[in-house]
Protein backbone atom coordinates (compact mmCIF):
# COMPACT_ATOMS: atom_id res chain seq x y z
CA UNK A 1 0.00 0.00 0.00
CA UNK A 2 2.70 2.46 1.09
CA UNK A 3 4.97 1.19 -1.67
CA UNK A 4 2.24 1.88 -4.25
CA UNK A 5 1.70 5.34 -2.85
CA UNK A 6 5.41 6.19 -2.96
CA UNK A 7 5.81 4.62 -6.41
CA UNK A 8 2.88 6.65 -7.75
CA UNK A 9 4.23 9.83 -6.19
CA UNK A 10 7.64 9.19 -7.75
CA UNK A 11 6.05 8.52 -11.16
CA UNK A 12 3.99 11.67 -10.77
CA UNK A 13 7.04 13.77 -9.93
CA UNK A 14 9.00 12.42 -12.89
CA UNK A 15 6.20 12.97 -15.42
CA UNK A 16 5.18 16.19 -13.67
CA UNK A 17 8.66 17.62 -14.23
CA UNK A 18 7.88 17.75 -17.97
CA UNK A 19 4.57 19.48 -17.19
CA UNK A 20 6.59 21.97 -15.14
CA UNK A 21 8.70 22.79 -18.19
CA UNK A 22 5.56 23.35 -20.27
CA UNK A 23 4.13 25.57 -17.53
CA UNK A 24 7.40 27.53 -17.25
CA UNK A 25 7.18 28.31 -20.97
CA UNK A 26 3.59 29.51 -20.61
CA UNK A 27 4.55 31.50 -17.53
CA UNK A 28 7.52 33.23 -19.16
CA UNK A 29 5.32 34.46 -21.99
CA UNK A 30 2.41 35.39 -19.74
CA UNK A 31 4.75 36.97 -17.17
CA UNK A 32 6.36 39.42 -19.59
CA UNK A 33 3.46 40.04 -21.96
CA UNK A 34 0.40 39.53 -19.74
CA UNK A 35 -1.01 37.73 -22.75
CA UNK A 36 -1.90 34.07 -23.16
CA UNK A 37 -0.31 32.14 -26.04
CA UNK A 38 -2.60 29.28 -27.00
CA UNK A 39 -0.22 28.31 -29.83
CA UNK A 40 2.49 27.34 -27.37
CA UNK A 41 1.65 23.62 -27.44
CA UNK A 42 1.21 23.44 -31.23
CA UNK A 43 4.55 25.17 -31.84
CA UNK A 44 6.19 22.50 -29.65
CA UNK A 45 4.29 19.86 -31.63
CA UNK A 46 5.71 21.30 -34.86
CA UNK A 47 9.20 20.99 -33.33
CA UNK A 48 8.68 17.34 -32.44
CA UNK A 49 7.52 16.63 -36.00
CA UNK A 50 10.71 18.27 -37.30
CA UNK A 51 12.59 15.76 -35.11
CA UNK A 52 10.42 12.88 -36.32
CA UNK A 53 11.03 13.88 -39.94
CA UNK A 54 14.79 13.58 -39.44
CA UNK A 55 14.38 10.28 -37.64
CA UNK A 56 11.97 8.65 -40.12
CA UNK A 57 13.42 9.98 -43.37
CA UNK A 58 17.15 10.13 -42.58
CA UNK A 59 17.50 7.81 -39.56
CA UNK A 60 19.12 10.68 -37.69
CA UNK A 61 20.65 10.11 -34.26
CA UNK A 62 19.42 11.35 -30.88
CA UNK A 63 21.33 14.63 -30.93
CA UNK A 64 20.19 15.58 -34.43
CA UNK A 65 16.57 14.75 -33.55
CA UNK A 66 16.84 16.79 -30.34
CA UNK A 67 18.39 19.75 -32.20
CA UNK A 68 15.70 19.62 -34.90
CA UNK A 69 12.94 19.46 -32.27
CA UNK A 70 14.38 22.44 -30.44
CA UNK A 71 14.97 24.46 -33.62
CA UNK A 72 11.50 23.66 -34.96
CA UNK A 73 9.83 24.72 -31.71
CA UNK A 74 11.83 27.97 -31.55
CA UNK A 75 11.12 28.84 -35.20
CA UNK A 76 7.41 28.11 -34.77
CA UNK A 77 7.39 30.12 -31.50
CA UNK A 78 9.07 33.10 -33.15
CA UNK A 79 6.53 32.92 -35.99
CA UNK A 80 3.70 32.98 -33.44
CA UNK A 81 5.31 35.95 -31.64
CA UNK A 82 5.61 37.99 -34.83
CA UNK A 83 2.09 37.24 -36.07
CA UNK A 84 0.03 37.16 -32.87
CA UNK A 85 1.92 39.39 -30.44
CA UNK A 86 4.33 41.81 -32.12
CA UNK A 87 1.96 42.64 -35.00
CA UNK A 88 -0.90 43.49 -32.63
CA UNK A 89 1.11 44.62 -29.63
CA UNK A 90 -1.01 47.75 -29.25
CA UNK A 91 -4.28 45.80 -29.54
CA UNK A 92 -6.24 44.14 -26.74
CA UNK A 93 -4.77 41.08 -25.03
CA UNK A 94 -7.83 39.15 -26.20
CA UNK A 95 -6.86 39.84 -29.84
CA UNK A 96 -3.49 38.16 -29.30
CA UNK A 97 -5.12 35.18 -27.59
CA UNK A 98 -7.70 34.71 -30.34
CA UNK A 99 -5.10 35.02 -33.08
CA UNK A 100 -2.86 32.53 -31.28
CA UNK A 101 -5.83 30.14 -31.37
CA UNK A 102 -6.08 30.69 -35.15
CA UNK A 103 -2.35 29.95 -35.54
CA UNK A 104 -2.85 26.82 -33.43
CA UNK A 105 -5.36 25.58 -36.02
CA UNK A 106 -3.01 26.59 -38.83
CA UNK A 107 -0.01 24.71 -37.38
CA UNK A 108 -2.12 21.63 -36.71
CA UNK A 109 -3.46 21.67 -40.29
CA UNK A 110 0.05 22.04 -41.74
CA UNK A 111 1.31 19.05 -39.77
CA UNK A 112 -1.79 16.97 -40.63
CA UNK A 113 -1.29 17.66 -44.34
CA UNK A 114 2.46 16.97 -44.34
CA UNK A 115 2.17 13.95 -41.99
CA UNK A 116 -1.14 12.27 -42.90
CA UNK A 117 -0.75 9.20 -40.64
CA UNK A 118 -2.20 9.22 -37.16
CA UNK A 119 1.02 8.51 -35.30
CA UNK A 120 4.74 8.61 -36.11
CA UNK A 121 7.64 6.99 -34.27
CA UNK A 122 10.01 9.04 -32.13
CA UNK A 123 13.40 7.67 -31.05
CA UNK A 124 13.62 6.56 -27.41
CA UNK A 125 15.93 8.52 -25.14
CA UNK A 126 17.09 5.87 -22.69
CA UNK A 127 16.06 2.23 -22.40
CA UNK A 128 17.36 1.43 -18.95
CA UNK A 129 15.57 1.24 -15.63
CA UNK A 130 16.53 1.45 -11.97
CA UNK A 131 15.04 -0.72 -9.25
CA UNK A 132 15.96 0.76 -5.89
CA UNK A 133 14.34 -1.58 -3.35
CA UNK A 134 10.69 -2.19 -4.15
CA UNK A 135 10.53 0.77 -6.53
CA UNK A 136 10.88 1.03 -10.28
CA UNK A 137 12.19 4.09 -12.10
CA UNK A 138 12.24 4.34 -15.88
CA UNK A 139 15.50 5.66 -17.29
CA UNK A 140 13.80 8.13 -19.62
CA UNK A 141 11.76 9.48 -16.72
CA UNK A 142 14.95 9.95 -14.74
CA UNK A 143 16.54 11.84 -17.65
CA UNK A 144 13.35 13.89 -17.99
CA UNK A 145 13.51 14.87 -14.32
CA UNK A 146 17.25 15.64 -14.47
CA UNK A 147 16.80 17.84 -17.56
CA UNK A 148 13.85 19.66 -15.98
CA UNK A 149 15.84 20.27 -12.79
CA UNK A 150 18.87 21.48 -14.76
CA UNK A 151 16.75 23.83 -16.88
CA UNK A 152 15.07 25.22 -13.77
CA UNK A 153 18.45 25.96 -12.16
CA UNK A 154 19.82 27.48 -15.38
CA UNK A 155 16.69 29.60 -15.78
CA UNK A 156 17.04 30.84 -12.20
CA UNK A 157 20.68 31.78 -12.86
CA UNK A 158 19.69 33.47 -16.11
CA UNK A 159 16.96 35.49 -14.44
CA UNK A 160 18.90 36.52 -11.32
CA UNK A 161 22.56 36.53 -12.37
CA UNK A 162 22.63 38.02 -15.86
CA UNK A 163 21.85 41.41 -17.37
CA UNK A 164 19.33 39.78 -19.72
CA UNK A 165 17.54 38.33 -16.70
CA UNK A 166 17.47 41.71 -15.02
CA UNK A 167 16.06 43.30 -18.19
CA UNK A 168 13.47 40.53 -18.51
CA UNK A 169 12.36 40.97 -14.91
CA UNK A 170 12.26 44.76 -15.34
CA UNK A 171 10.07 44.47 -18.45
CA UNK A 172 7.74 42.01 -16.72
CA UNK A 173 7.38 44.38 -13.71
CA UNK A 174 6.91 47.65 -15.56
CA UNK A 175 7.52 47.86 -19.33
CA UNK A 176 7.29 51.67 -19.40
CA UNK A 177 9.83 52.10 -16.60
CA UNK A 178 12.09 49.53 -18.26
CA UNK A 179 11.95 51.43 -21.56
CA UNK A 180 12.91 54.66 -19.80
CA UNK A 181 16.07 53.22 -18.35
CA UNK A 182 17.03 52.31 -21.92
CA UNK A 183 15.90 48.68 -22.13
CA UNK A 184 14.71 47.64 -25.59
CA UNK A 185 11.44 46.11 -24.44
CA UNK A 186 10.56 44.72 -27.89
CA UNK A 187 13.82 42.80 -28.06
CA UNK A 188 13.39 41.49 -24.51
CA UNK A 189 9.85 40.28 -25.27
CA UNK A 190 11.05 38.59 -28.44
CA UNK A 191 13.92 36.91 -26.58
CA UNK A 192 11.60 35.78 -23.79
CA UNK A 193 9.32 34.21 -26.38
CA UNK A 194 12.23 32.43 -28.05
CA UNK A 195 13.48 31.24 -24.64
CA UNK A 196 10.03 29.93 -23.69
CA UNK A 197 9.80 28.13 -27.04
CA UNK A 198 13.24 26.57 -26.50
CA UNK A 199 12.18 25.31 -23.07
CA UNK A 200 8.99 23.99 -24.67
CA UNK A 201 11.11 22.30 -27.34
CA UNK A 202 13.11 20.47 -24.66
CA UNK A 203 9.89 19.44 -22.90
CA UNK A 204 8.42 18.26 -26.22
CA UNK A 205 11.51 16.22 -27.01
CA UNK A 206 11.58 14.57 -23.56
CA UNK A 207 7.86 13.73 -23.62
CA UNK A 208 7.90 12.42 -27.20
CA UNK A 209 11.04 10.36 -26.47
CA UNK A 210 9.38 8.84 -23.40
CA UNK A 211 6.22 8.01 -25.38
CA UNK A 212 8.27 6.94 -28.45
CA UNK A 213 5.57 8.29 -30.71
CA UNK A 214 4.04 11.58 -31.76
CA UNK A 215 0.65 12.68 -33.12
CA UNK A 216 -0.65 16.01 -34.47
CA UNK A 217 -2.80 16.25 -31.32
CA UNK A 218 0.29 16.59 -29.16
CA UNK A 219 -0.16 20.39 -29.43
CA UNK A 220 -3.60 20.24 -27.82
CA UNK A 221 -2.28 17.94 -25.11
CA UNK A 222 0.75 20.15 -24.37
CA UNK A 223 -1.39 23.30 -24.25
CA UNK A 224 -3.82 21.68 -21.80
CA UNK A 225 -1.10 20.27 -19.55
CA UNK A 226 0.90 23.51 -19.53
CA UNK A 227 -2.14 25.71 -18.92
CA UNK A 228 -3.47 23.50 -16.11
CA UNK A 229 -0.05 23.31 -14.43
CA UNK A 230 0.40 27.09 -14.70
CA UNK A 231 -3.06 27.75 -13.27
CA UNK A 232 -2.53 25.31 -10.38
CA UNK A 233 0.80 26.93 -9.50
CA UNK A 234 -0.28 30.54 -10.01
CA UNK A 235 -0.22 32.46 -13.27
CA UNK A 236 2.97 34.41 -13.84
CA UNK A 237 4.98 32.64 -11.11
CA UNK A 238 7.97 30.47 -12.11
CA UNK A 239 8.12 28.62 -8.75
CA UNK A 240 4.36 28.23 -9.15
CA UNK A 241 4.81 26.70 -12.60
CA UNK A 242 7.26 24.15 -11.20
CA UNK A 243 5.00 23.27 -8.27
CA UNK A 244 1.91 23.21 -10.48
CA UNK A 245 3.53 20.81 -12.94
CA UNK A 246 4.66 18.44 -10.19
CA UNK A 247 1.24 18.59 -8.52
CA UNK A 248 -0.50 17.79 -11.80
CA UNK A 249 1.82 14.85 -12.39
CA UNK A 250 1.18 13.49 -8.88
CA UNK A 251 -2.61 13.91 -9.18
CA UNK A 252 -2.59 12.06 -12.51
CA UNK A 253 -0.38 9.25 -11.23
CA UNK A 254 -2.49 8.63 -8.11
CA UNK A 255 -5.87 8.92 -9.82
CA UNK A 256 -4.70 6.66 -12.66
CA UNK A 257 -3.68 4.02 -10.11
CA UNK A 258 -6.49 4.25 -7.58
CA UNK A 259 -9.42 5.23 -9.84
CA UNK A 260 -8.35 3.86 -13.21
CA UNK A 261 -6.64 5.48 -16.20
CA UNK A 262 -10.00 6.61 -17.62
CA UNK A 263 -10.35 8.93 -14.59
CA UNK A 264 -6.83 10.35 -14.78
CA UNK A 265 -7.61 13.45 -16.85
CA UNK A 266 -11.00 13.84 -15.20
CA UNK A 267 -9.33 14.01 -11.78
CA UNK A 268 -6.88 16.65 -13.01
CA UNK A 269 -9.76 18.78 -14.32
CA UNK A 270 -11.66 18.31 -11.05
CA UNK A 271 -8.66 19.56 -9.06
CA UNK A 272 -8.27 22.47 -11.48
CA UNK A 273 -11.94 23.34 -10.97
CA UNK A 274 -11.51 23.17 -7.18
CA UNK A 275 -8.49 25.47 -7.40
CA UNK A 276 -10.35 27.96 -9.60
CA UNK A 277 -13.19 28.09 -7.08
CA UNK A 278 -11.34 27.95 -3.77
CA UNK A 279 -7.83 29.17 -4.57
CA UNK A 280 -8.01 31.08 -7.85
CA UNK A 281 -4.54 32.56 -7.47
CA UNK A 282 -2.99 29.09 -7.46
CA UNK A 283 -0.37 27.74 -5.07
CA UNK A 284 2.09 30.65 -5.35
CA UNK A 285 0.03 33.69 -6.25
CA UNK A 286 -2.55 33.37 -3.49
CA UNK A 287 -1.11 36.12 -1.27
CA UNK A 288 -1.04 38.51 -4.17
CA UNK A 289 -4.60 37.61 -5.13
CA UNK A 290 -5.80 38.15 -1.57
CA UNK A 291 -4.00 41.49 -1.50
CA UNK A 292 -5.62 42.50 -4.80
CA UNK A 293 -9.02 41.42 -3.49
CA UNK A 294 -8.55 43.51 -0.35
CA UNK A 295 -7.38 46.47 -2.42
CA UNK A 296 -10.41 46.12 -4.68
CA UNK A 297 -12.70 46.09 -1.65
CA UNK A 298 -11.06 49.26 -0.33
CA UNK A 299 -11.70 50.99 -3.67
Amino acid at each position, binding site marked *: MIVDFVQNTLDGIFVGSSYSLLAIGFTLIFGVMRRLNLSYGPSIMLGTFAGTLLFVEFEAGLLAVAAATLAGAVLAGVYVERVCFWAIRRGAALASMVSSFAIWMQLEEIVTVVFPDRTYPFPPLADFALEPGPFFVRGDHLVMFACAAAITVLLHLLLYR*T*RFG*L*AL*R*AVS*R*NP*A*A*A*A*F*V*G*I*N*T*GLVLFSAFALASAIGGVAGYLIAAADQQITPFFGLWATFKGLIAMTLGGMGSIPGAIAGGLLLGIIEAHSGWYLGTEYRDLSAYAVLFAFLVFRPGGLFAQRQTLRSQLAARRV
Partner: protein
Amino acid sequence: MLEVERVSRSFGGVAALTDVSLEVGAGEVVGLIGPNGSGKSTLLNVITGISPAERGVVRFDGRDVTSLRPDRTAALGLTRTFQTPRVLHRMTVLENLSAALFAGSPKVRRLRKADRERLNGLLEECGLGRRVDELASKLTLPEQRRLELVRTLVSDPKLILLDEPAGGMTPAETEGMARLIAEVAARGRTCIVIEHKIDMISSLCERICVLDFGRVIADGTTREVLEDEAVLDAYLGRRDIA
Protein backbone atom coordinates in the same frame (compact mmCIF):
# COMPACT_ATOMS: atom_id res chain seq x y z
CA MET B 1 20.66 70.80 -26.84
CA LEU B 2 16.88 70.35 -27.18
CA GLU B 3 14.82 71.93 -29.93
CA VAL B 4 11.07 71.47 -30.02
CA GLU B 5 9.76 73.01 -33.22
CA ARG B 6 6.06 73.72 -33.82
CA VAL B 7 4.95 70.46 -32.22
CA SER B 8 1.26 69.52 -32.14
CA ARG B 9 -0.49 66.56 -30.53
CA SER B 10 -4.17 65.86 -30.05
CA PHE B 11 -6.20 63.11 -28.42
CA GLY B 12 -9.58 62.25 -29.94
CA GLY B 13 -10.00 65.69 -31.47
CA VAL B 14 -8.87 67.55 -28.35
CA ALA B 15 -5.70 69.52 -29.01
CA ALA B 16 -3.26 68.84 -26.19
CA LEU B 17 -0.39 70.74 -27.83
CA THR B 18 -0.63 73.29 -30.63
CA ASP B 19 2.47 74.59 -32.42
CA VAL B 20 4.61 74.38 -29.30
CA SER B 21 8.22 75.48 -29.73
CA LEU B 22 10.89 75.38 -27.07
CA GLU B 23 14.67 75.54 -27.10
CA VAL B 24 16.81 74.47 -24.18
CA GLY B 25 20.54 75.05 -24.13
CA ALA B 26 23.18 72.89 -22.45
CA GLY B 27 23.37 73.41 -18.70
CA GLU B 28 20.06 75.24 -18.46
CA VAL B 29 17.45 74.43 -15.83
CA VAL B 30 14.08 75.34 -17.30
CA GLY B 31 10.80 75.34 -15.40
CA LEU B 32 7.72 74.23 -17.28
CA ILE B 33 4.56 75.43 -15.62
CA GLY B 34 0.89 75.79 -16.46
CA PRO B 35 -2.54 74.89 -15.15
CA ASN B 36 -3.65 71.24 -14.98
CA GLY B 37 -4.38 69.94 -18.48
CA SER B 38 -2.26 72.62 -20.15
CA GLY B 39 -0.13 69.99 -21.93
CA LYS B 40 3.02 69.92 -19.79
CA SER B 41 3.19 66.14 -19.34
CA THR B 42 2.08 65.62 -22.95
CA LEU B 43 5.04 67.73 -24.06
CA LEU B 44 7.38 65.52 -22.02
CA ASN B 45 5.72 62.43 -23.53
CA VAL B 46 6.26 63.85 -27.02
CA ILE B 47 9.91 64.68 -26.34
CA THR B 48 10.66 61.23 -24.91
CA GLY B 49 8.79 59.26 -27.59
CA ILE B 50 5.93 57.87 -25.50
CA SER B 51 3.42 59.77 -27.54
CA PRO B 52 5.06 60.97 -30.78
CA ALA B 53 4.16 64.36 -32.23
CA GLU B 54 1.57 64.47 -35.01
CA ARG B 55 3.21 67.58 -36.45
CA GLY B 56 6.50 69.31 -35.78
CA VAL B 57 10.00 68.14 -34.98
CA VAL B 58 11.92 67.32 -31.81
CA ARG B 59 15.72 67.50 -32.06
CA PHE B 60 18.12 66.43 -29.36
CA ASP B 61 21.78 67.27 -29.76
CA GLY B 62 21.04 68.12 -33.40
CA ARG B 63 19.45 64.71 -34.07
CA ASP B 64 15.81 64.26 -35.04
CA VAL B 65 14.25 62.17 -32.26
CA THR B 66 10.62 62.86 -33.15
CA SER B 67 9.71 59.24 -33.79
CA LEU B 68 12.26 57.43 -31.66
CA ARG B 69 11.14 54.88 -29.05
CA PRO B 70 11.65 55.75 -25.35
CA ASP B 71 14.53 53.28 -24.98
CA ARG B 72 16.31 54.91 -27.93
CA THR B 73 15.88 58.43 -26.56
CA ALA B 74 17.12 57.15 -23.19
CA ALA B 75 20.16 55.61 -24.89
CA LEU B 76 20.93 59.01 -26.44
CA GLY B 77 21.02 60.58 -22.99
CA LEU B 78 17.49 61.89 -22.60
CA THR B 79 15.80 60.51 -19.50
CA ARG B 80 12.82 61.42 -17.37
CA THR B 81 10.81 60.85 -14.22
CA PHE B 82 7.04 60.59 -13.91
CA GLN B 83 4.27 62.22 -11.85
CA THR B 84 3.61 58.81 -10.35
CA PRO B 85 7.06 57.29 -9.83
CA ARG B 86 7.63 54.36 -12.16
CA VAL B 87 10.09 52.37 -10.12
CA LEU B 88 10.40 48.62 -10.59
CA HIS B 89 8.39 47.68 -7.52
CA ARG B 90 9.19 44.00 -7.01
CA MET B 91 12.90 44.60 -7.51
CA THR B 92 15.42 45.92 -5.01
CA VAL B 93 16.68 49.50 -4.97
CA LEU B 94 20.06 48.32 -6.27
CA GLU B 95 18.41 46.28 -9.04
CA ASN B 96 16.47 49.38 -10.10
CA LEU B 97 19.77 51.18 -10.62
CA SER B 98 21.51 48.14 -12.12
CA ALA B 99 18.83 47.89 -14.81
CA ALA B 100 19.64 51.45 -15.86
CA LEU B 101 23.38 50.76 -15.72
CA PHE B 102 23.15 47.65 -17.89
CA ALA B 103 20.81 49.27 -20.40
CA GLY B 104 22.87 52.45 -20.54
CA SER B 105 26.25 50.79 -20.94
CA PRO B 106 26.22 47.83 -23.35
CA LYS B 107 29.78 46.98 -22.33
CA VAL B 108 28.79 46.36 -18.71
CA ARG B 109 28.13 42.62 -18.55
CA ARG B 110 28.02 42.18 -14.80
CA LEU B 111 27.93 44.41 -11.76
CA ARG B 112 31.59 44.84 -10.85
CA LYS B 113 32.83 46.17 -7.54
CA ALA B 114 33.48 49.62 -9.02
CA ASP B 115 29.95 49.73 -10.50
CA ARG B 116 28.42 48.74 -7.20
CA GLU B 117 30.45 51.36 -5.36
CA ARG B 118 29.31 53.99 -7.84
CA LEU B 119 25.65 53.00 -7.44
CA ASN B 120 26.04 52.92 -3.65
CA GLY B 121 27.59 56.38 -3.82
CA LEU B 122 24.62 57.70 -5.81
CA LEU B 123 22.22 56.15 -3.30
CA GLU B 124 24.14 57.67 -0.38
CA GLU B 125 23.93 61.09 -1.98
CA CYS B 126 20.17 60.90 -2.27
CA GLY B 127 19.70 59.43 1.20
CA LEU B 128 18.84 55.89 0.15
CA GLY B 129 22.17 54.33 1.13
CA ARG B 130 20.65 52.19 3.86
CA ARG B 131 17.85 50.86 1.69
CA VAL B 132 19.97 49.43 -1.09
CA ASP B 133 18.69 45.86 -0.72
CA GLU B 134 15.06 46.73 0.05
CA LEU B 135 12.29 46.18 -2.46
CA ALA B 136 11.39 49.45 -4.18
CA SER B 137 7.74 48.85 -3.25
CA LYS B 138 8.68 49.32 0.43
CA LEU B 139 9.97 52.85 -0.12
CA THR B 140 7.82 55.85 0.76
CA LEU B 141 6.62 58.14 -2.04
CA PRO B 142 9.40 60.73 -1.52
CA GLU B 143 11.96 57.90 -1.45
CA GLN B 144 10.54 56.43 -4.65
CA ARG B 145 10.79 59.86 -6.28
CA ARG B 146 14.42 60.14 -5.17
CA LEU B 147 15.13 56.63 -6.45
CA GLU B 148 13.58 57.50 -9.79
CA LEU B 149 15.68 60.66 -10.01
CA VAL B 150 18.91 58.91 -9.07
CA ARG B 151 18.10 56.13 -11.57
CA THR B 152 18.07 58.73 -14.34
CA LEU B 153 21.64 59.68 -13.33
CA VAL B 154 23.05 56.17 -13.65
CA SER B 155 23.36 56.29 -17.42
CA ASP B 156 25.02 59.72 -17.24
CA PRO B 157 22.27 61.55 -19.17
CA LYS B 158 22.61 64.91 -20.91
CA LEU B 159 19.04 66.04 -20.35
CA ILE B 160 16.72 65.10 -17.50
CA LEU B 161 12.99 65.78 -17.63
CA LEU B 162 11.36 65.88 -14.20
CA ASP B 163 7.58 65.61 -14.06
CA GLU B 164 6.35 67.07 -10.76
CA PRO B 165 9.25 65.75 -8.70
CA ALA B 166 7.78 67.20 -5.49
CA GLY B 167 4.16 66.28 -6.12
CA GLY B 168 2.41 65.15 -2.93
CA MET B 169 5.40 66.01 -0.73
CA THR B 170 5.45 67.96 2.53
CA PRO B 171 7.32 71.33 2.60
CA ALA B 172 10.34 69.66 4.23
CA GLU B 173 10.37 66.85 1.65
CA THR B 174 9.94 69.40 -1.13
CA GLU B 175 12.94 71.29 0.16
CA GLY B 176 14.98 68.10 0.20
CA MET B 177 13.98 67.27 -3.37
CA ALA B 178 14.78 70.83 -4.51
CA ARG B 179 18.23 70.49 -2.92
CA LEU B 180 18.80 67.20 -4.71
CA ILE B 181 17.76 68.64 -8.09
CA ALA B 182 19.97 71.69 -7.47
CA GLU B 183 22.94 69.36 -6.81
CA VAL B 184 22.21 67.49 -10.03
CA ALA B 185 21.95 70.74 -11.97
CA ALA B 186 25.12 72.10 -10.37
CA ARG B 187 27.04 69.29 -12.07
CA GLY B 188 26.16 70.84 -15.41
CA ARG B 189 23.20 68.65 -16.28
CA THR B 190 20.41 70.18 -18.32
CA CYS B 191 17.00 69.85 -16.70
CA ILE B 192 13.39 70.62 -17.53
CA VAL B 193 11.25 70.65 -14.40
CA ILE B 194 7.46 70.52 -14.35
CA GLU B 195 6.17 71.68 -10.98
CA HIS B 196 3.19 73.48 -9.49
CA LYS B 197 5.17 74.71 -6.49
CA ILE B 198 6.25 78.12 -7.71
CA ASP B 199 8.66 78.67 -4.83
CA MET B 200 10.55 75.55 -5.79
CA ILE B 201 10.56 76.46 -9.49
CA SER B 202 11.74 80.01 -8.84
CA SER B 203 14.55 78.80 -6.60
CA LEU B 204 15.72 76.18 -9.11
CA CYS B 205 15.20 77.72 -12.53
CA GLU B 206 16.56 80.80 -14.20
CA ARG B 207 14.08 80.42 -17.00
CA ILE B 208 10.42 79.44 -17.11
CA CYS B 209 8.17 78.40 -19.98
CA VAL B 210 4.42 78.58 -19.43
CA LEU B 211 1.84 76.45 -21.23
CA ASP B 212 -1.88 77.13 -21.31
CA PHE B 213 -4.40 75.15 -23.38
CA GLY B 214 -1.51 73.47 -25.19
CA ARG B 215 0.17 76.70 -26.29
CA VAL B 216 3.23 78.52 -25.01
CA ILE B 217 2.00 81.80 -23.51
CA ALA B 218 5.29 82.93 -21.97
CA ASP B 219 8.96 82.01 -22.10
CA GLY B 220 11.62 84.04 -20.37
CA THR B 221 13.58 84.60 -17.21
CA THR B 222 11.90 83.54 -14.00
CA ARG B 223 11.36 87.12 -12.90
CA GLU B 224 9.92 88.23 -16.26
CA VAL B 225 7.53 85.30 -16.45
CA LEU B 226 6.28 85.54 -12.89
CA GLU B 227 5.44 89.21 -13.51
CA ASP B 228 3.85 88.59 -16.91
CA GLU B 229 0.21 89.66 -17.07
CA ALA B 230 -0.92 86.72 -19.20
CA VAL B 231 0.75 84.26 -16.83
CA LEU B 232 -0.74 85.89 -13.79
CA ASP B 233 -4.14 85.69 -15.40
CA ALA B 234 -3.92 82.16 -16.71
CA TYR B 235 -1.94 80.37 -14.05
CA LEU B 236 -1.40 82.28 -10.87
CA GLY B 237 -5.09 83.11 -10.65
CA ARG B 238 -4.92 86.89 -10.34
CA ARG B 239 -8.12 87.12 -12.33
CA ASP B 240 -9.82 84.83 -9.82
CA ILE B 241 -8.47 86.79 -6.89
CA ALA B 242 -9.66 90.01 -8.47
